[in-house]
C-alpha cells in the first residue's frame, strides 16, 4: 500500500508537470519559445555552464533515476596458473602517474566552425584518464650478472649495468569524460606503457635510483669477489 501511494504521488507530479507545460505553451507561446531557446543554448552551446540552478536540475534528475537503477555489481575472479622460477634483484620502487587527455571543440566552437567552415585544432581539454603505477626497478636474472662479473675487479661503480624496470602495476585510476576502455588500452600495450614510464623516470633527471641500484648490486658482487681474492691469497 505504501509503495502504491508513492508511485501514485510520482505519477501525479509528472502528470502535473506535463499538463502545466502544455497550458503554459498555449497561454504564452512567445515566452515558451524563449525558454526552449534558452534550454537549447544551455544544452548545446554551453552558454550557462556552471550556473547553480541548472547544475541542481541535472543532479536532481540523476538522483531520481538512481532510485530505479540498482547499484553496480562487481565480480572479480583470480585463479593461480602456476609459478615461474626467477631470481631478480629489486633495488627501488617508484609511484608514477601517467596522464592522457582528450581534446575536443566546445559546442559553441563547433557551431562557429559549422557556420564559418574553418577547422582549427581543438584545444579545450574535455576529459582525462590518470593512471597511477607502482614500478619495481632492479636487475632481472641476477644469477647471469653475478656470473658475468665473478672474479672481475670493479673499480668504478659505473662499470656495472644500469637497472631496468621489472614490474609495472596499476594501483589506481581516475577517469573523467574519457572512455574507460581507451584508458585501459594503455595496460594492454606493454611496450607503450613501458616507454611512457621510462620517459617519466628520465624526465625527473634524478639519477639517484640508478646510483642506488648499482650500489646495491656492487655490494653483492663485492661479497663474492672478496672470497675470490682470499682464494688467490691462499694460493
Amino acid at each position: 500500500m505504501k509503495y502504491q501511494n508513492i508511485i501514485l504521488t510520482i505519477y501525479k507530479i509528472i502528470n502535473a508537470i506535463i499538463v502545466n507545460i502544455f497550458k503554459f505553451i498555449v497561454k504564452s507561446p512567445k515566452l515558451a519559445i524563449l525558454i526552449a531557446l534558452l534550454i537549447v543554448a544551455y544544452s548545446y552551446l554551453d552558454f550557462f555552464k556552471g550556473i547553480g540552478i541548472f547544475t541542481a536540475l541535472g543532479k536532481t534528475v540523476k538522483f531520481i533515476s538512481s532510485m530505479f537503477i540498482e547499484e553496480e555489481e562487481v565480480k572479480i575472479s583470480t585463479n593461480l596458473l602456476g609459478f615461474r622460477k626467477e631470481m631478480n634483484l629489486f633495488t627501488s620502487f617508484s609511484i608514477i602517474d601517467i596522464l592522457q587527455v582528450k581534446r575536443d571543440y566546445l559546442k559553441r566552437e563547433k557551431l562557429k566552425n559549422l557556420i564559418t567552415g574553418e577547422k582549427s585544432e581543438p584545444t579545450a581539454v574535455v576529459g582525462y584518464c590518470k593512471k597511477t603505477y607502482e614500478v619495481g626497478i632492479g636487475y632481472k636474472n641476477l644469477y647471469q650478472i653475478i656470473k658475468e662479473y665473478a672474479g672481475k675487479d670493479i673499480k668504478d661503480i659505473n662499470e656495472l649495468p644500469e637497472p631496468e624496470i621489472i614490474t609495472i602495476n596499476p594501483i589506481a585510476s581516475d577517469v573523467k569524460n574519457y572512455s574507460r576502455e581507451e584508458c585501459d588500452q594503455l595496460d594492454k600495450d606493454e611496450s607503450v606503457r613501458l616507454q611512457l614510464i621510462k620517459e617519466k623516470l628520465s624526465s625527473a633527471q634524478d639519477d639517484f635510483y640508478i646510483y642506488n641500484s648499482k650500489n646495491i648490486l656492487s655490494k653483492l658482487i663485492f661479497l663474492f669477489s672478496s672470497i675470490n681474492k682470499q682464494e688467490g691469497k691462499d694460493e
Partner: protein
Amino acid sequence: MNNSKYLTLFILFIFSSGCFNLVRSEKNNEVIQKIKNDIPALSSCVGIFNVVYCDYNQNWISTDDIYILEGIGEIHYGYDLNKIKFNIYQEGNEKILRVTIPEIEEIARKWKVDNIYRTHRNYNPQNNDPNKEINKDLDSRSKQYLQRANKFGKETIKFYFTNIAEIYGLTLDLVFEDEKKLPLQIPPPELK
C-alpha cells in the same frame, strides 16, 4: 487545483535539493599513494594469476551495461635483502658459504590486460575503479598462496645459490629461518 499543488511540490523539491545539496554529490576518487620503502629485495619466484574483472550495471531504460577486463597478474615473491645473512667459514679442507634466508614475502606485482569486453564504447564503471578492486583482490590471494610460493621459492633459491657457490668453488649451506634450524652456538672461524 490538484495539478498546481503537485507542480508546486516538484518546484520546491528542485530548489531545496539544489540549495541544500540533498542530491547525491559525486564521489571523490582518492588516489592511493602507497609509498613502498626502498628496501632491496631478492625475488625467487613469480606467481602467475589469471584475473577477470566484471562490472555489471543494471539500466532502467536501456540495455544493461557490462565492462569486463581479462588479464594476467604476476606476484613476485622473495626475501628482504637486508635480512639475508652471508657467512663464509672453513671446515677442514672445505670452504662453506652459509646463507640464511628469512621468511618469504610479497615483493612486487605486475598486471597486464589481455582483453577488454564492453556493452558500448562509452560505458564507464561509475562507482568502481577496476585497478583498485583488482589490487584489493590480489592482496587477499597473495596471502593465500604464500605457503605454496614458499615451497617453490626455496627450491629456486637453493638452485641458484648452489650454482653461485660452485662458481667460487664453495660448498653451500642454506638455512631457512622458518624451518628453525639451530644456529651454530660457536660463531664460525674466520678465513685466514
